[in-house]
């Protein structure tokens, strides 16, 4: 195993020297005796589309859940925009502009596509029950504005024809698009995507990739993408961080990753030719 040797010569990260929006510092998370994330550190540069790859069980999804506030790390810190956000709840992170999607998409099944997006509208006055009782006009005006925004986003991601369909009836790929659309409702600064390409047909995936690039280039949204689909990683991500056994193994451009013999041999196997 070459892990130790590789750890002793850390790759200089371009992101650390650049302006970092997200910094993961020495994060550890164990489930029983299994250290899913083990002293993992890296930084994600502002405005980048960073890939996070590695074999199954490398701890990518666990780490994503920790960053998104769904899990609490045992030790270590997460800095978002220079501020410690370790242990904050997902909704608190969302308020700061950090959104996430799930590996298996989880829209609210009994709500329509439109309703799912409207639900995600931030700072809704009507979410306080006394406003719903006492200020219906104000709530109604805001609801209208949120519906307008949701319709705009639905048109953007090409789901407008499914406006009134229940989320439970969408295909897997459409659900992924809906989740992506949901993150846009809060006008995010950074989005964590957990395997956006898994189970998605090529056409939808191309669309999704275009949207990700557009959001990044036109609106400066940073993306951290956990993915097994190397085509998508190659197309979108620079830099790519490779995780193995709970920690960062390598970081560099996709070409560097696929030429690194240790990464190739130990972790990507035959996937990258």
């Amino acid at each position: 195993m070459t892990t130790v040797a590789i750890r002793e010569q850390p790759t200089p990260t371009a992101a650390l020297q650049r302006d970092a929006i997200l910094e993961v510092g020495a994060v550890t998370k164990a489930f029983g005796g299994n250290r899913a994330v083990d002293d993992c550190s890296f930084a994600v540069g502002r405005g980048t589309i960073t890939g996070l790859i590695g074999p199954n069980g490398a701890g990518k999804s666990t780490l994503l859940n920790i960053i998104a506030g769904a899990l609490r790390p045992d030790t270590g810190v997460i800095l978002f925009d220079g501020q410690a956000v370790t242990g904050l709840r997902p909704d608190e992170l969302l308020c700061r502009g950090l959104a996430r999607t799930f590996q298996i998409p989880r829209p609210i099944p009994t709500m329509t596509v439109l309703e799912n997006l409207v639900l995600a509208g931030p700072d809704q006055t009507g979410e306080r029950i006394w406003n719903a009782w006492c200020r219906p006009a104000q709530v109604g005006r805001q609801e209208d504005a949120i519906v307008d925004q949701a319709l705009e986003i639905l048109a953007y991601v090409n789901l407008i024809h499914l406006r009134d369909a229940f989320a439970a009836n969408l295909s897997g790929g459409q659900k992924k698009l809906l989740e992506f659309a949901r993150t846009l409702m809060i006008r995010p600064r950074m989005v964590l995507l957990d395997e956006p390409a898994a189970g998605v047909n090529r056409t939808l995936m191309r669309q999704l990739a275009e949207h990700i690039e557009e959001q990044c280039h036109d609106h400066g949204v940073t993306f951290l993408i956990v993915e097994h689909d190397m085509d998508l990683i190659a197309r979108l991500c620079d830099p790519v961080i490779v995780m193995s056994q709970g920690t960062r193994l390598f970081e560099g451009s996709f070409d560097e990753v696929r030429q690194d013999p240790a990464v190739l041999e130990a972790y990507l196997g035959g996937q990258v030719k």
Partner: protein
Amino acid sequence: MTRRGNLLAIVIVALITAFLVGLPLLRTGSISSVVSFLVPSLATMAIFAIVCIGLNVQWGYTGIFNFGVVGFFMVGAYTAAIVTKSPADGQFATYIGGLGDALAAVPLPGAGAWLPFLVAIIAAAALSAALALPLAWPIVRLREDYLAIALIGAAEVLRRIATEERWLVNGSRGLGGIPRPLAGWVNADAYNYVFLLIVVVLLLLVYVLVDRGIRSPWGRVLRAIREDEDATAAAGKDVVAFKLQGFVLGAAIMGAAGALFAFQQGAVSPETFTHFFGTFIFWAMLIAGGSGNMVGTIVGVYVIWGLWSTTLQLQGFDLPAFVEGRIPHLRDTLVGVIIVVVLLVNPRGLVPERARVSRWLDRRVAAMRRSEAAGD
């Protein structure tokens, strides 16, 4: 709603109505006796409908599995008793409070007839909510089934306290002689009608308030939490805070209904508040009627309580001995059968949940569809 489900709802409601009116009419042959049977029954139904609306907020919309309804209902009933009664004599009865006389002496027009009762209902709701909040704080984080067990335990603890602590609410003897609202203003014959009016007005008030709350962005978040807590958190909602709000609002409503129940019964004792009567029957009503639907909730109360009270009417008839002695058991069985039939034919209840919650969004979508139809 499916056509079959629709038909079932209509048939069952019609059957119950036929029983409610027909049985007393057959037995006595006089309309006035039918009315005098129906009016208190309807008042009881209205009170139970308020409880079920509270449970509907907790389970139907928020997905909180409250199997301790009886606890909040009982706290409301006892609170109403100690607020409206005169102080304890310390000899035959010992209890705290006894604010009735003091409140009646407040210099407001006719204060004695209404002020203690208004204060009692508000206090019952407030105390029930105040109890729900610390109780819910640790347990809303539990999974559904554990939460149900924790709440059964909490309700049982409350019942034990009411039974054992004589200084608090007179122990197992309970509290009798609870005064009735507006009783001084109307004569005794007409009182049942006045009481029915009071509870129906309060039911409407609770209905409108809850409906407004549910059909707003607030209710949308509750419903999302019911479906998937993690996804709702990822949509930026503070799941625990919303669950607490749903739970506490539901508990407050149950407490207020408990107060009305105390006024109607005139006496409360720990024996009344069994888990079967105080929890199971309300769940049966909610499930039969359709959780997540306000109208369904009321239909469920009507069907289950209608069945419950009409079966007792059967005892007035000359029935074969083996049936007559078993009527209470047959009644329990019938409630079970109704639940099974409803769940088989339409698992979402007699009047299932509406698809969209927010009334503003409802209007917008309707308008968009209209304009699309016009465009085509």
